[in-house]
């Protein structure tokens, strides 16, 4: 069921579904196929050609000036089709440039981002800064009109095929925590940058990105020096409604149900009861997603609704996957089946993009006033 959208928005959904017929079989939402990187870039370009990477950008930046509901519909349907996730560049990076960038930076990047021709990856996590981003150590030392960057990022998605890294790095004193961070845009082909793979359990890869005396023009700094934390935080806020598209879960449930039908157990009362309970939870997350979208549209602070939505969605993704293996019998274990793949894939969902523990802490403080 799709619910709560205007006639125009539903017409847009129909266009998206039509668009997706071109990319049937494309599996770029997960890192599942070997051609993922190539394929996903094709999807982004095709979206860019239609102006769909900038649906909600203000018109002054060449965007569609549309409600965030359009972005939501787009990425929700792409998630159901398993085609692709929202790219960082036209989302988080572009919106950060609009609020914190210079005119020169906007001119340099926005057109390419809008067209799907420039790809960004996010350089946040480090070996010793996972949940605790304020402890980032990658250092950018000012040297005239350049910064010289040394350090390492890790678990960086898509670094191996991106053009730029959106780098959170330390420009203040070692112990300056969140007060001494800055954001730099670093072309990944700059001398001294090296990207090496970290193969992951879902069959894809994350990356380690090392910086060895990398010289970056000061003009590539976004926002003021030492104000990187504000840039990163506000950028996060504007993308919450597309971070975990609820239809990803509906698709998971459908895939697992199909596997259980193949296994001949879909009619079993125990299976039906559990899958019914999971179906109720999928509708819960759809409702949380709609509520979050409403908050984003209204401009209300949405950290708590976003945290609830992520917590609920990621936990449910794991529970759906677990049901697949519990009920699917041994054929559910064959590598390449949806069941065993989802088991492997969903492990990361409650870790990446803010762990469940961090989400709970945020809600405890902000909703319940508990300093835990």
């Amino acid at each position, binding site marked *: 069921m799709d619910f709560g959208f205007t006639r125009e*928005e539903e017409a847009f959904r129909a266009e998206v579904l039509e668009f997706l017929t071109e990319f049937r079989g494309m599996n770029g939402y997960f890192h599942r196929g070997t051609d993922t990187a190539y394929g996903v870039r094709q999807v982004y370009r095709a979206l860019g050609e239609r102006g769909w990477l900038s649906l909600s950008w203000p018109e002054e930046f060449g965007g569609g000036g549309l409600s965030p*509901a359009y972005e939501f519909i787009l990425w929700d349907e792409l998630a159901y089709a398993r085609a692709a996730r929202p790219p960082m560049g036209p989302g988080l990076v572009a919106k950060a440039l609009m609020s914190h960038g210079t005119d020169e930076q906007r001119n340099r990047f926005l057109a390419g981002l809008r067209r799907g021709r420039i790809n960004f990856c996010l350089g946040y996590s480090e070996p010793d800064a996972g949940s605790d981003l304020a402890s980032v150590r990658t250092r950018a030392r000012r040297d005239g009109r350049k910064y010289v960057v040394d350090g390492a990022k890790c678990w960086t998605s898509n670094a191996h095929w991106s053009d730029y890294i959106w780098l959170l790095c330390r420009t203040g004193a070692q112990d300056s925590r969140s007060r001494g961070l800055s954001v730099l845009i670093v072309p990944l082909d700059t001398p001294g940058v090296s990207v090496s793979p970290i193969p992951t359990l879902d069959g894809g890869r994350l990356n380690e990105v090392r910086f060895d005396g990398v010289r970056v023009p000061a003009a590539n700094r976004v926002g003021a020096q030492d104000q990187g934390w504000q840039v990163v935080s506000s950028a996060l806020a504007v993308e919450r409604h597309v971070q975990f598209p609820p239809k990803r879960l509906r698709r998971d449930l459908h895939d697992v149900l199909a596997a259980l039908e193949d296994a001949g157990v879909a009619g079993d009362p125990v299976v039906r009861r559990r899958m019914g309970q999971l*179906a109720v939870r999928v*509708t819960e997350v759809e409702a*949380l997603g*709609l509520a979050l*979208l409403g908050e984003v549209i209204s401009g209300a602070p949405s950290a708590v609704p976003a945290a609830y939505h992520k917590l609920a969605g990621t936990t449910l993704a794991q529970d759906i996957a677990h049901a697949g293996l519990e009920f699917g019998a041994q054929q559910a274990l064959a590598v390449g089946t949806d069941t065993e793949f989802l088991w492997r894939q969903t492990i990361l969902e409650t870790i990446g993009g803010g762990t469940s523990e961090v989400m*709970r802490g945020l809600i405890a403080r902000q*909703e319940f006033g*508990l300093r835990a």
Partner: protein
Amino acid sequence: MSVSLRRTDEQRMLAESVRDYCAAHCAEQVRAAEGFPWPFWHGLAELGLLSLAVPGEGAGAGEIVTACAELGRAAAPGPIAATVFATHALPERQAVLLSQGKALVSLGKRPLLPWAPLAGVFIETDGDGAWLADPVGEVEPVEMLGGEPWGRVGLRLAQALDRVPTARALSDLALAAYLWGAGRRLLDGVAEHARTRIQFGKAIGSFQAVAHPIVTAGLALTSAEKLTMMAALAMDEGHEDGEVLAVSARLSASRAAVGAALTAHQGFGAIGYSVEGPIGRVAQRIRALATPPGYADGSGEQVLAGYFQKGRP
């Protein structure tokens, strides 16, 4: 987006008026009253809260949900969801008795029906259909967890009712909202307790072992709340998924409210185990209302089937 899952201004006003009324007239004695608090119930009727579901009255699922959430938060007594069902499905002559607060309705299945010892109108339902019925013989009172007056009763079916699917969906939503409100009451209470109760030199809420279960319960309640609001909007728009969403909302709110009750008990510790304590009666009411009329009532499967039909391959 054409809808938001926030209350409209009108709904906010309705919620405030129900909250104010309950604050003034639904004290602990009313909730725990041995006899039924008729004046309180009549007041609900005067506010129009017992006629929200009457066909053609102009009120919708959104108002029902708004009002019932506040009644739940006040832990108000009475056959609230059953009145929603009955006033929607009954012919006008009987419905008016209920919507004016002149009689209570007993809605259930033989032999054991809620509110039977006090009821003036009996409806039997088997999950599909529903019938106006006449009691046969004496009602034998049965004491039940949750403190509502139940009874064993014989019934003679008198008349099949109309509009049963919609009546059931509206009463599912009423129950979902009531349970959400009651659960929220307990969760707000235990969160306040966690902020102020000191053990080991600090507020117990600064221990993640206390705080994170409160968050987990909050997540379930918020999920149920949003799903209930979404379902109400779907019903009001005549969306084809309205009924399946309504039963989903009931299941969701049942789970969430029971979870909130248990979280509250664990957080309050021995304080909450006292009969005179802040949560026991409400927790028991929640547990009773969340217990399905027959465990194998197929609600989960109904949801699954409804959901499945919507799947694109």
